[in-house]
């Protein structure tokens, strides 16, 4: 024990307070009237909550379109990550050596390591030739490409836990590899698929650099909308906080559900070979 018990607890409480305060502050600002937002000393609890900011946010011309863009792109790219990632993860988990394994793992790490801007510059130029600029499909594919490594790392750890003997008995019954994979392995790894899906959708939901470069008016996502508040000369913190809250709430809800797998996801790729 490094610290006394009381010191440990004070540290934990202090850290928890610092961790949660900005979240609390965003949400409380989002339900404050203008007068309360700009009052000094700041009002922490003694104000009358209002939905004004949300109403003005929701009545923004493009708000619902942007919100649904975020959902569609997150959902689409997550599905691709799961399908494509689970196939590769299974191969990597079960077959220790095959041609192309090393370069594949190298690319996975390269995606994690390289600043995305390095790859997004050429992708931007290429996508205008392919007509993928400002298209939801284009964003789904690019999001998926950048997130597949994380899906693979996470899914590998789940596949490795499934005993090989189960597959052997299936093979005796004459099942093909693909059939065995879809009928036996995937159902057994269902919790892993759910956890991976949630983790990857979190990455997509939060992504900013890709859409800020690749999305125009049609495919803008929520983080781009949230960021666009800052460029207005008249900073209006209420609706801004409402926009931030709308982006944050799904995450907070999801993470409560997947606490257990989160830790594995968050450190994925960091220490695995």
């Amino acid at each position, binding site marked *: 024990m490094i610290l006394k018990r009381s010191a440990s607890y004070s540290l934990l409480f202090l850290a928890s307070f610092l961790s949660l305060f900005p979240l609390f502050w965003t949400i409380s600002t989002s339900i404050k009237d203008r007068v309360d937002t700009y009052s*000094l000393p700041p009002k922490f609890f003694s104000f009358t909550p209002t939905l004004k900011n949300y109403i003005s946010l929701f009545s923004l011309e493009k708000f619902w379109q942007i919100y649904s863009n975020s959902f569609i792109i997150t959902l689409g790219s997550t599905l691709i990550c799961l399908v494509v990632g689970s196939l*590769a993860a299974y191969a990597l988990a079960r077959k220790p050596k*095959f041609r192309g394994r090393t370069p594949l793992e190298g690319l996975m790490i390269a995606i*994690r390591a390289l600043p995305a801007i390095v790859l997004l510059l050429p992708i931007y130029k*290429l996508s205008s030739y392919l007509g993928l600029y400002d298209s939801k499909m284009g964003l789904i594919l690019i999001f998926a490409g950048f997130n*597949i490594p994380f899906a693979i790392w996470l899914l590998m750890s789940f596949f490795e836990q499934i005993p090989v003997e189960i597959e052997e008995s299936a093979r005796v019954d004459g099942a093909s590899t693909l059939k065995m*994979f879809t009928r036996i392995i995937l159902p057994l790894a269902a919790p892993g698929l759910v956890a991976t899906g949630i983790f990857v959708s979190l990455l997509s939901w939060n992504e*900013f650099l890709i859409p800020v470069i690749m999305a125009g008016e049609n495919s803008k996502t929520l983080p781009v909308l949230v960021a666009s508040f800052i460029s207005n000369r008249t900073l209006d913190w209420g609706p801004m906080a409402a926009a931030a809250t709308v982006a944050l709430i799904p995450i907070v809800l999801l993470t409560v559900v997947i606490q257990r797998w989160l830790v594995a996801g968050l450190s994925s790729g960091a220490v695995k070979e």
Partner: protein
Amino acid sequence: MITKVPRPNLLRRKNLRPVAQFTIPTWIFFALVVLIPFFYGVYISFLNINLASFLPPSFVGFDNYQMVLAASETWSTLQITLIITFIGLLTQIPIGILLALVLHENLRGTKIFRSILITPMLLTPVAVGLTYRFMFDTDLGVINWALGSLGIEKVNWLGSQTSALFAIIIVDSWQSIPFVMLLVLAALTAISPSLYEAARVDGASVNQIFRRITLPLITPTLLVITMIKIMDFLKLFDTLFILTRGGPGNTTTTLGLWTYKTGFVFLEFSRAAALGVIITIITLPVYFLWRRASRGVR
């Protein structure tokens, strides 16, 4: 007498293994987002593409590289990246270790505390940046108000280079410390308790145990964290973009943000591509050190 029969299991196991073809879809996606863009980016860096110009691009050899390496912004933004990285590491790693040690004590309520403490790293960076920008506001921000009630004068946080760099590091630390904490916690959990017991029997002090046992055993993990964090500081974009957009002037612009500005604000696309290649070259040694270090962890 027992005759030796070939073990059917072993024979079958060969066919049983999933085929390497399972990785083909992944290869297609990697070609789409890494391989093709990377080589195309290298190609672009030898042309003179300007997004505002309608002239057909021509081949200019190493001109872009010469220009980029001669530009003072390249060096000043690299310097700013290094400053943020250095101070950021010095902040985040010790605090991350301390929190991991406290969580590792397994006091009552540890699970709840852990859940709370990892929340920051999950939140949308753009929204986090926005919130902090409000909190850092000179006149209305809650941070200056809190400092004021301690008798400290108002700081114009985002108005000068030094304080803006501090603000950026504070926000990044807020989101990154949980990551350090989680990895260190995993390393601590892997240390056998018998080591501690033996040390305690020998009468080692808490301090000695930490310096002689814990620290050496988590060093490989700390190296991995350092490498990953260096790469992440090179990537730093979202919160930086919201908080200062690299300002005032270019005084908080990192190399990554500078590449973005060169390409998408000044529209000097080929020059930005050259910067991209340079960033890749900077990342390479970190990448290899990371691969090496991560072998030590498991």
